[in-house]
Each structure stands twice: as structure tokens, then as C-alpha cells.
């Protein structure tokens, strides 16, 4: 299974510098790269020092808008060439987006394409944020906020410059589930960015712990999440009583139907009535959800359901009200049947 990561970040935030530096690392030797540039003539691939055969450019538009099909085709082509021994037997693919890209539709394409399902595993989103221009960028460009909101890892760049600002608090409010890392001139160990197991939590429970810790952060900031005017809010839900599986399904269907694009990400562990000892991992991007994964056991003594919602201006309390009502309705139906 080839692991696929999305590397995004606003224009000039240091994506290409980071990627170029990463590819020099021996742990990145078995990595293929897809670079999406907006414009007829791509430059970034020239700046990335790696074996040419494992770098693919997509210059015909932006991945998140017009060429999602091209991305799937390119991935299938790369995987086919790998299978035939025409390129290095890579174990990881990094997709570098354009600076204005919305990573959510890219993730959705990776999560839903049946032709890719048996061959790739989505690893997550790495977002670079330039701390010199970060405040101005976040203030002016909703694309930059969304890139941070959807991230699993946020890499702060240019932190060594005297003009650097402390953006950690603002970014933690936008996305408390993402790890905040620092890379000066792209210097960071690949293991801190990739193979995070975000979509395979059994492989790396530490990420589940990060989500759970995020719940506390989201609750702490529940009173002032909009103070930057970013329009992005994180809402955490903790639920002691186990939930009926049918109620969870209905809940996700209603979220998809009514919240759609404003529901940026949902992550969490859920205790189901039908499987209380084995938590179910919920992971969604807008209306697209990964199939539930069951962990062998709870990662710690706390066995409460915990869900974190990162949304664009949605009232988080509604999620709790809705889930409570749905579970009551399903429980009532069960009682009547009994």
C-alpha cells in the first residue's frame, strides 16, 4: 500500500523549499512527487531536487478545481509504472498543491476513488504557514485559513527571521487537531510529517491522542473562537453514554446533507453500543467519510466518545443536540421492538 500525503500552503509559504529539503533525506528515498502548478509553465519541479522520473507535473489547472480526474489518472499511471518496474519502487507519494488550493476536494478524491482504494492509503495533509506574512495572509485569504483548518500537520516556516510572529495561538484556534511543527529552511525529519497514520489510527495511536487533546483545547476556546474573525470554529463533543451505530450513521448523513462544505473536518473516537470495548474511529472531510475503523482497545483509561468538528461558522452545540435526539429516537425504537 502506497501512502499518499498532500502538501499544501499559501503562495510563498515554503512548500517547495520544504519538499526540496525533505527529498534529500534518506528516509524520503522511496518517494514519488506530484507537483501541481497553476500555469502553463511549471517552475517548482525545477526547484525540487530529486530523480526526474519520480516527479510528475500537473500544470493544466488547479487540482482542487478542475483537474481532480487528472490527479487520479496520474496516480494510477504512477502506480502502474511502479508495478511494471519503470520507475523506482516508491512507497510514498507527496502531492504538492498550488498555493491557492483547497485541500478538501483533493482529499475527497483520494478517499473515494475505487480504482485507487486497494493501492493507496491517504496519510494526511501537511500545511506550511509562513510566520512572517502569516497574519496578513490569514486575514486576507480564506484559502489560507482553510488550508490550516484541514491540516493534520502545520509546519511553521521562516521562524528564524526577525519579523516572525507567533501564530501558534491563532492556528490552534483554527485547528486544534493539527500538530504544530517548525522547519527552518525546510529542515525537519520526514517522520514528523509523514506516515502519520491519520487514516489508519491503529498504526499510530499517538495521532488519536492528539485529536483527543485537541478536544480540551477546543473547549477552552469555545467562548472566543471567532475573535480573529476567521469564520472557522472548532467544536469538541464528549459523550459518556455509548451511541447506537444506527444513530451514528444517521448523524453523519444529516451532517453531510445540511452542513456539507461548511463541515471542514470531523475526527474522533466513538463508543458504540454494539462495540463498547473497541472504539470506532470517525474521520471525515466535508461530506466524505472514511469507512469506520475499529481500534483493538481504547487508547487510555478514558473511554468516552470524543468528536472534534472543524467548521466554517456552524453552531457546534447543534451537533450535540442532534446526536442526543437521534440516539434517543433509535433507543426508543429498540425498546419498542423489544
Amino acid at each position, binding site marked *: 500500500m502506497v501512502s499518499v500525503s498532500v502538501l499544501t500552503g499559501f503562495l510563498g509559504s515554503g512548500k517547495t523549499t520544504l519538499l526540496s529539503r525533505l527529498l534529500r533525506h534518506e528516509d524520503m528515498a522511496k518517494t514519488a512527487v506530484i507537483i501541481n502548478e497553476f500555469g502553463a509553465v511549471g517552475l517548482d519541479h525545477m526547484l525540487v531536487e530529486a530523480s526526474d522520473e519520480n516527479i510528475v507535473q500537473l500544470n493544466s489547472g488547479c487540482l482542487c478545481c478542475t483537474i481532480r480526474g487528472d490527479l487520479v489518472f496520474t496516480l494510477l499511471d504512477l502506480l502502474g509504472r511502479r508495478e511494471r518496474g519503470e520507475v523506482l519502487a516508491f512507497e510514498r507519494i507527496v502531492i504538492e498543491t498550488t498555493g491557492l488550493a483547497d485541500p478538501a476536494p483533493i482529499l475527497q478524491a483520494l478517499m473515494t476513488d475505487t480504482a485507487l482504494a486497494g493501492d493507496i492509503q491517504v496519510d494526511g495533509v501537511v500545511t506550511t504557514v509562513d510566520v512572517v506574512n502569516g497574519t496578513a495572509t490569514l486575514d486576507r485569504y480564506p484559502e489560507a485559513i482553510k488550508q490550516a483548518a484541514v491540516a493534520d500537520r502545520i509546519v511553521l516556516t521562516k521562524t528564524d527571521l526577525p519579523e516572525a510572529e507567533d501564530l501558534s495561538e491563532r492556528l490552534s484556534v483554527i485547528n486544534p487537531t493539527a500538530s504544530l511543527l517548525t522547519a527552518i529552511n525546510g529542515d525537519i525529519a520526514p517522520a514528523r510529517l509523514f506516515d502519520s497514520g491519520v487514516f489508519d489510527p491503529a498504526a499510530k495511536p499517538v495521532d488519536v491522542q492528539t485529536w483527543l487533546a485537541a478536544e480540551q483545547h477546543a473547549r477552552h476556546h469555545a467562548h472566543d473562537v471567532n475573535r480573529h474573525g476567521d469564520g472557522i470554529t472548532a467544536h469538541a463533543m464528549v459523550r459518556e453514554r455509548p451511541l447506537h451505530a444506527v444513530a451514528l450513521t444517521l448523524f453523519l448523513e444529516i451532517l453531510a446533507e445540511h452542513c*456539507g462544505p461548511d463541515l471542514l473536518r470531523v475526527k474522533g473516537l466513538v463508543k458504540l453500543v454494539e462495540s463498547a470495548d473497541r472504539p470506532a474511529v470517525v474521520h471525515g472531510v466535508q461530506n466524505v467519510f472514511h469507512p469506520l475503523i475499529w481500534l483493538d482497545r481504547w487508547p487510555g483509561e478514558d473511554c468516552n466518545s470524543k468528536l472534534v468538528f472543524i467548521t466554517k461558522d456552524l453552531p457546534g452545540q447543534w451537533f450535540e443536540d442532534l446526536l442526543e435526539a437521534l440516539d434517543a429516537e433509535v433507543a*426508543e425504537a429498540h425498546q419498542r421492538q423489544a
Partner: protein
Amino acid sequence: MPDNSEWVEHLETLLNGALDIWRVDGTVTCNTAECTLRTSKASICVARVTDDGDPYWEVILQDSDLPPLPFGGIQGMLRAVREAVGVDEAGTRLVIGPRADC
């Protein structure tokens, strides 16, 4: 099993939150049996009927000649109210990605 007053509480919070989610201005008023949601486009009465048989939700479009619309669950009830208040955007469908081992 919740009694009807508890269902009315659920309904009130759900409808109020739904107005925010749909970005629709409106009000929700409830008595012990039902809630009425009013917007510039519609006035809708929603109740949980528990008299005989399986309980269900009833949506009454007060400015319409349509008979009360029955719904077995919250999902259908919310969808009907959403349509009645005239939310233009089509709802999106839940998509579950394929399992890697299938």
C-alpha cells in the same frame, strides 16, 4: 423512553440550530406538544405524534393546503422543514470512501 415534553425540547434546539446551519432568519416557538417555526417564507408546525402505533414526526405547512406530512425519523423531518423554508442549496449526500481491503 423520553416523554413528549422531552421531545419538544429536542425539537426546539434542533430547529433553532437548523436555522443557523441553513443561514435562515426565523423564530421557533414551542408549547408542550409542538413547535412552530416561522420565517419570511413559511410557517411550519412540527409535532411528535405518539398516540397509536410507532411514533412519528408530523410537519404541517401552515400556509399550504397540503395535509400533514408524516416522517418516521428526525432525518426526514429536518429535510422537509429545510425544503419548506426555501433553502436554495441542494443538500449534499454522505459519501463513504471505499475500504482498502475490498
